[in-house]
């Protein structure tokens, strides 16, 4: 019951949002928590995967959504986590957990180092999804969601950010066989 109430309360300050994909096609739908300012990447086609599809800001926090074109294989979520951890010269305090949603599987990383906070989520479409969208490789893109800012603000927003990540899904269903 407490989980439902928590979720329902949370929904009150979420707003639906659609994100345009790397190839200029509408690709993801997600629920943005209240108070986040949207900064659209001013390009129709984004070829450089280092550039985000979209950026959001709130206080010191900056959230970025990236997608990585699917070319027959996915980037393992572990590789993304390792890449993120390598940016810290000394071993930081971190937590990683596995998760899945909307046909995607992935890892979420939470890091705290020298007063700075980092939250990274890396997801790939599962086998059933890849089979269902085999003729639409743009749908099979991997995606990452990265939030950086002060550790205290990130800690304060942690629950909302995790719900935000959880809300990301494709705008169409994986066909049920």
């Amino acid at each position, binding site marked *: *019951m407490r*989980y*439902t109430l928590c*979720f*329902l309360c949370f*929904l009150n300050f979420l707003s639906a949002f659609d994100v345009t994909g790397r190839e200029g096609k509408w690709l993801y739908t997600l629920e943005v928590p209240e108070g986040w300012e949207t900064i659209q990447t001013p390009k129709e086609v984004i070829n450089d995967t280092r550039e985000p599809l979209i950026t959001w800001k709130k206080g010191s926090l900056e959230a970025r959504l990236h997608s990585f074109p699917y070319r027959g294989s996915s980037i393992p979520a572990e590789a993304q986590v390792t890449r993120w951890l390598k940016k810290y010269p000394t071993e930081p305090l971190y937590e990683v*957990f*596995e*998760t*899945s*949603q*909307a*046909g*995607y*599987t*992935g*890892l979420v990383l939470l890091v705290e180092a020298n007063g700075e906070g980092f939250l990274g989520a890396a997801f790939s479409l*599962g*086998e*059933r*999804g890849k*089979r269902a969208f085999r003729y639409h490789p743009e749908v099979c893109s991997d995606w990452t969601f990265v939030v950086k800012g002060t550790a205290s603000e990130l800690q304060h927003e942690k629950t909302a950010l995790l719900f935000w990540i*959880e809300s990301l*899904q*494709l705008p169409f*269903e*994986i*066909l*049920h*066989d």
Partner: protein
Amino acid sequence: MIRFFGGLYLTVPLLVITILLVAAATFLEGQTGSHAAAEGWVYHHPFFYLLLGLYFVNILFSTFTRWPFRKSHIPFLLTHLGLLLVILGVAIKGFFGVQGVMRLHEGEGSHLIIFPKTEGLFGKNGEWRFSFPLLVGQSFQDGELTYTPLEIFPHGEGNWSRSAETIYMLDGGKAGYAAEETGKLIPISFEATPLPIPEKIEDARPILHLHIQKGDETEKRMLLYESPVLEPVFGTLLKFQPLVARAPNHIHLHKAKTIYRPGTQIPESFEAKISVDEEPFTLLMNQVYESKQGYRYYLSHIEGKAGEVKEVQLAVNFDPAKYILTYPGGLLVVLGSLLLLFKKKPSDYNKSKSAI
């Protein structure tokens, strides 16, 4: 006649038989670990339904033994009327209700209710077409093809024997073809072998021995129940699986998770975020969603480890008599029982009279 059907001569044997049957079913379930065995032999056996019918007759006639009714009969009448409504509600649910499951992976949506333990044949030549329940020896036609179920073996196993020289099965075996190293496509054909029935009936996987005719050509196939791969015959993919029906609601599964006790791998709770006709809802272990059409959706099972796409099984239940018969019947039984409890006994009347 009324005295017999409404009297203890019928009530006592009915109660004794019911107690013995329920005890036997409990013992059977304990020994085999199979609820399906207890259901098949006792709870869903026609004899058990006959017992329910006799209870109805017994309660109805015993009510009329009090005729002409007086004010003091009200608690008795309410209790008996409540019991009759409950039994009638159970019968209507049995005949016109729906009790099935929905299986969904995260990200998927469906409106198909599956009825476990039923047997149907499905054919796909373009679109999936659903069959009627299978009856051995009874042919049915679908387009140019005539299907005749020759036999249904209660249990067996199937093997795809040519995997060594194949590269992969197209669409995970669901396309009905596998590709050889030479690039040649070969139709999938399962070799199914009948086996003795396992002790736990739930583990049994029936095999359908099917005769298919197209004009002068004929084929015979052994189809494994809920086979992971499909077999094409005369260009039609065949599936031997539970019957399905269309639910009035479209269910989409967004996320499912198992919540563990802190610091352990012991599940504490289960949770599934679904949308019913695009309305979001979180199903918990004991939290049911009831749609406007009266269909109830329960979270019955979550499969998949952390980091895997989870599969959820929802129990789907529709009871058309619940609000008009079963629940009012239950209320009447409670009310009647309370009135019986607080009703003045004949000795109380005598005491009051003597006091006067």
